[in-house]
Structure formats: C-alpha cells, structure tokens
C-alpha cells in the first residue's frame, strides 16, 4: 500500500505522483510542476453510529490541483467521510484540515475554502436559478460574482433557465445548478458525492470538463462515484474504502502493481477483486 504522508504538513513531494501519472493513462498535468501544497488533509478519521463503526482510522491528503477518486461499495463509508469532512456531521475522531485551517478550531475559515456537492441536491423551490447564485455569493462573501456566474451558467447550459424556479428544475438541472453554486467562490477543496447522477450525456461531458478545469485552477477535488470509468478517466489518485477502512490509496498504476503484479486490468476488475466477499 502506498504511503501518502507528505514530508511537511502542507506539502506533497511531486515525484511519486508525477511518476505514477506518467505511468497511468491519465493527463500528465503536473509533470514538471513544483511541489504542491496540501489542500485537504484528513488524519485518523473514524466515525461510529451507535455501535457500528462506519469509518475506521482513515488518513489521506489531497494536493492543490489534484483529483482524488473515492471508491467503495454501498455502505463502505464514502458519504459519511465526505459529509464529515464537509462539516455536515461533527468530526468524531481524527482531524481535518482544509486549506491549512483546522475544521474544528477554525471551522468558518475552513468552510470558506470548501464546496460540497451532495448526490441529490435540493434547491429552494421558490427561488430562481439566479437567486440561488446570489445567495451562494452572499454566503461565501463573493462580491463580484455576476461575471463568474454567467460563465458557469453558460458552461452548464443554464443561461436560459435563469428565471426558472428551483422547484421546476429536472434532476439533471438541479445537479448543474449545484455545480454552479459550489464553484462560484472558486473553492480550494471540492467534495462531490456521485456528481454525475441524473445528468444527460452532454451534461456529463460538461461536468467532466468543468471538474478538470477546476483542478487546473488549483482546487483539490474529492470525487466519490460508482462510475468507475469516470474515476479512471479523471482521478489522479484513488482511495478505495471497504467496510469503513482504507484498502488502497495511490495511482491506478500503483493499484495495478499492487493487485495485478503490474498487468493491465480495468479499475472495475480490480475493485471487484478487492471487495469480493470472502467465501465462508
């Protein structure tokens, strides 16, 4: 298993990541990039519900401009992890640092740097698309938001839906609106839980492009999805969790090296092999 610990609290060495990326069929985005700062750091995170441990001792770091794919079966603890990192659930054990701000000690500063996109975004039924953006700008203290809002609306083909009410939007449009609101303040860390569910093919293409461009702008992205092709296509590194525990953290090439002896195999095949229930 790869050790992802940075040498200093907010820096990751570029070399292992670069090597891994050049070996994997991913865009070598950071080949010659200088060492990047860690935007999201999760250390020893655990969460229990009643007596059931949903997540156990999870540690991972995501650098600026990096996309981390969070993969696991239903009930593996992905959503619990993301909701705790987003500050929706209280942090029970462990620590989370977002853009250098501790989530418990400097909660508001940490959250200013964060964007959360749930799997089923619920817009305000009586607010228009424009008003959603206006409210998001007010929440994150973005003063000059109109131009960026226009750009995001155009990216997600919502320009002609400006005056539509939240209650009138389809599932896919609600998802697109959530993207626009979340990215308005140029967040340092973006957490996405099944972000492409409900989107049509064009919407999926726009969302993928937008996620990549967000990472290029320097945001750290954690992308949780059951669409393993999407993770394979977008993620720089993978975090596989199974029954609340980290099973693997590293690049796809490292995953293949660890579980396939370096032979080719799709993420889906490897994931199924790792998480296969043991006989007996």
């Amino acid at each position: 298993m790869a050790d992802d610990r940075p040498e200093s609290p907010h820096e990751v060495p570029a070399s292992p990541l670069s090597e891994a990326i050049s070996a994997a069929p991913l865009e070598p985005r950071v080949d010659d990039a200088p060492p990047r700062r860690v935007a999201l750091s999760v250390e020893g995170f655990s969460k229990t519900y009643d007596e059931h441990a949903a997540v156990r001792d999870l540690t991972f770091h995501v650098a600026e401009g990096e996309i981390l794919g969070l993969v696991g079966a239903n009930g593996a603890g992905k959503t619990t992890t993301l909701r705790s990192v987003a500050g929706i659930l209280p942090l029970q054990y462990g620590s989370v640092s977002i853009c250098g701000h501790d989530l418990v000690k400097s909660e508001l500063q940490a959250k200013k740097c964060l964007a959360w996109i749930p799997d089923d975004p619920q817009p305000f039924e009586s607010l228009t698309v424009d008003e959603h953006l206006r409210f998001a700008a007010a929440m994150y203290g973005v003063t000059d938001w109109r131009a960026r809002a226009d750009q995001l609306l155009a990216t997600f083909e919502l320009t002609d839906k400006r005056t539509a009410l939240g209650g009138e939007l389809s599932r896919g449009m609600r998802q697109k609106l959530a993207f626009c609101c979340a990215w308005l303040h140029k967040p340092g860390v973006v957490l996405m839980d099944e972000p492409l569910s409900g989107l049509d093919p064009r919407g999926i293409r726009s969302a993928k492009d937008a996620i990549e461009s967000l990472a290029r702008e320097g945001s750290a992205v954690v992308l949780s999805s059951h669409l393993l092709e999407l993770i394979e296509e977008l993620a720089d590194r993978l975090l596989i969790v199974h029954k609340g525990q980290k099973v693997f953290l590293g690049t796809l090439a490292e995953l293949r090296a660890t579980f396939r002896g370096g032979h080719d195999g799709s993420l889906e095949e490897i994931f199924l092999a790792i998480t296969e229930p043991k006989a007996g």
Partner: protein
Amino acid sequence: MESFLGNPALRLLMRLKFVGGLRRQARRLKEPKHWIFLILGVLVAFSWIASVLMGSVLRSGGLAPAVSNGPGTYAAVKVAMLVLTILTVIGAFSHRGVYLPKEEIELCFSAPISRSDLVRYRLVVNLLKSLFAGLLFGVGAATRLSGGIYAFVGVFVTFLTIPILGQAFALMLGDTENKLARVSRKLPLGVVTRVLVIVVIVGGVLLVSGQDFSFLEKMLGDSARGGFSLEEFARRPVVSAVLAPFTPWARMITAETAADFVPWFLFALGFWFLAFEGTARIPVDYRETSLSTSADVAKRLNRMRRGAFGPGQGNLTKTTLGWDVPWIFGRGAFGAVAWHKTTSIVRNSRGPMILSAIVILFITLLGTAISRRGEDAQLFMGTALPAAMGTLYLCAGLRFDFRSDLELMDRLKTWPLRPSLLFLAMILPEIVLVCILVLGSMLAQAAWVGRIHPGAVAVFAIQPLFTLTWVALDNAVFLFSPVRYAPGEDGALQNMGRAMLLMLLRVALMSAIALFAFAPAWLVYYLLTDMTEMTPGQALWPAGALAWVLCAAADVGLVVAGGWMLRRFDVARDKPV
C-alpha cells in the same frame, strides 16, 4: 462576526424566500380556477376569524369590557401560559436541535455560517410564523380583558417569547440526548422512560393534591356544580410555585393602566432580547440531532400527505413483516392488486388498525348499553346507531386508498387490468375491512344481548353498499383532483378553497345517489300502501329491495366512473403534490 441581526446571507435568504413565496402564489394564479380556490379559501379563513372575534365580542358585550380583570382572570392567564409553555416544550421533543428543511440543512452546515447565526435565523423564522397567532390571540384577548390595548400587546409579546423558549429547550434536549447516547446504549432506556413517566405523573398528582386525592373529587364535583374556582386552585402552594415564573407576563397582559403595564412590558422586552441572544449562544453542537430531526420531519410530512390514517402511517416491524397475507380476492390480476393492497394495510398500518379496533369496541359497548334497555325501538337503535357511527368513522378515518399510492400511479397504470376493475381492486380491501369491523361489531353485540331486531337485517344489507358508495365516490373525486396537502406547505388558502369545493361536490353527488336510489323506492312504497292492501310493514320490503338494487346500480356506475377517472389521471400532469 457574531451579531444580534445574524448572518447577512441568511437575512438575504429570508428575503428571497419571502419574495419567492409571493411569486409562486402569483404564478399559480395564472389559471382562473386557482383564483376561485383562493377567493373561497380567503372567505373560509375570514369567516372563521370573524366568527372567533365576533363570538368573543358578543360574549364579553363590547370591544373592551368595563368589568375589571379580577384575580380569576389573572390566574387564568397564568394557567394558559403554563399550558402553552408545556405544549411548546412537548413540541421541542419532536424538533430536537435546530430544525432546518431538507434544502437548507446540508447547504447551511457545510457553509461558512456559525451555528449561532443558524439558530438566530431559525428563531426569526419561527417568530415570523408566530406573528399571525400572536395577532389573532392578541385581538381576542383585547376583546375579553379590560386592559384592551395592553392585553393585545402583552399577548403579542408573549406569543413571540414562547417559541424562543421552545427552541432553547430543543437545543438542550438534543445536547442531552447526544451526551446520553454514549451511556444509554448500555441502559434499558425503554423501561427507564416508562418508569420515569409514571413517577412524574404520580409525583405531580401527589404534589398538587398535598398527598391526597380528594382535590380531584372536589374539583370534579365543583366543576359539575359550576363552583370550581381556578383562582383557588392557583393559590395552592405547589401550583402557585409552578405558575410564579409567568407572573410578569400575566401582569403585563392583565394590566389596566399604563403605569401597571409599562414596567412589566419593559421586563418582557428585556427578557425577550436576553432569551433570543442567550438561545443563539447556547454552546451546543446540534448538527447530528438536527439532521435526524430534519429527516423525521420530512418523513412525517410525507405521511401527512398520504392521508391521516393511511398505510404509510406505521412503520414496518419484524412482527408484521412475518405475517402471511391470504389471497382472499382470487389469484388473477384483480386478486393480485387487491392482495398487494391488503398486504400494505396489514403490514404497514398497525397504529390505525389498533385505533380503529378501540373505536369499534367503544361503539359496540355503546350499542350494547342501548340495546339492553329492552324495548324494540331501543334494540333497533342499539344496532343501527353504532353501525352508522362505525361506518362513518371508519370510512372517513381509514384511508387505505389512492391517497397513499399516488407515487405508484405510473407503475399502477401499466398493470394488466381494466381501469374500472383496477379501481375496484384498489378500494375493495378497505371496504371489506370496514364491513368486517362494523358487521362483526353488530354480531358481537347481538350475541352479547342475546337477541337481534329484524330491522338489523336491513342494516346488514345496506351497510356494505353504503361503504362501497362512500369509498368509491371519495376516491373518484380524489382522482379527479389529486392534490394532497400537508400543513405548512405553500398555498394554504387555495387548498382550503379547493377542499371546500371538493367537499361540496362529494355532498352533491352523494345526495344525487340517495335521490336516485330512494326516490323510486319511496314511490313504490307509497303506491303499494295506497293502491294495494299491503300494510306499511309489508310494503317496506319490496321498496327496500328496490332501493338496494338501485343503490347497487349506482355503485356499479361509481366504479365505472372511478375507472374513467383512473384512465384520465395523467402521471405527468397530476404528479404527487
């Protein structure tokens, strides 16, 4: 930055939601029918408020009664405040933490908004919701208390204070629950709670009564004689201690001069500010309890939309899941649909079923008591009255029909069954259940009394038909206008207007069916008694048989009409609301 005014983004949200609400109303009014619903709703609401106020004015004989507020009024205000506070505290049990609707909760918890600001936001929302009640009760108090304007302002301020206390209690309750949760897993909490409730009730009674129960007998006796004195009751040491915290508000509400009013008013205002800010600053992490409260409220709203006593009301339990439900309506498509519905009733509706059984037991006892008086007329009344009451109660109360299955309509429309048969299969289990309960009650009563009136045969014959008429008509009208409304949703006035119109439609159709079935029967009865030598008793049977046949024919028509309504139902247009 902590400020009394709260987070600017949340203030903006409140403004936007207010404007958005008005805009949604305006958009709804594009169709004329919504105007009609609104006007009717306004009329209904206005007449209700006017009747409350006018009743108050008439009872007191003027806008501000000349009679001075006595100690009885003062005690009554305190007791009313105690009751209101207890109700608010009980309400806090179901809103532990801070309640935020589903569209706000994750958004606000992940945003850079402090928890204190979120509490302030919720407090303001709750206070805005209390404005109307404050105004209404304020005007009511002004008409009944001699202080007039002082009573109005006092009641208004009080109504804006109690929700703050409710929120504070909900926050502390959530915190206690979180802390206890770690320990409670190892404790038999169910037993502890029951014991505590019993101890509190018994303790309360003993305390109030000074350890003897004679006060209850006295109170009941006095009350029956009209001699019960609230003032005397409030003077009991323990009651007086419990009511003492409400003194400033009671003084403010019952004040008759400015000099009496102002000090208590200033105290109440100061308390309001302190309570508001103090509640916002309670150092509690309410996120987990709020998430669970929000999910509970969402579930409750869904259940309310499905009808008050529908199958969705109960929760599936391991016991009910294990119950095997027989295919009593056959093995074909019709039988399968009816079995599906029966299963949902049996496995999902323990609460409504137990409640119905209790009501029916009560009705059976009532019928038995009437029948046992011995005379023929009383024997018939003892059978007919409970049968009518039971049928009306169960038909109106049990809603195992299309209301609870509106979400399934697109699936339901693909089932291979003629719409009229599908309609019948969906309502038949409820009809059979009502008939079994009511007719079972009648038989039990007959067995208990030891005899049965011959007229009961007519009741046996007509009861299933009446049940079918009621349920089929109710469902056909519902499918015609499939709107489910839960309290607190937008468009309350329009819904009120719509509900009134639909009720009138149901009454009109029921009257038409009654006319169709009973007018010819009455004619036959008249002709037979007038033109032949039949006695009224003999003529009653053919006339009754004709009424039965016509009623059955009307029911067939209703089922066909219900099928037509089902076919007309458009899953894209009539989506569940």
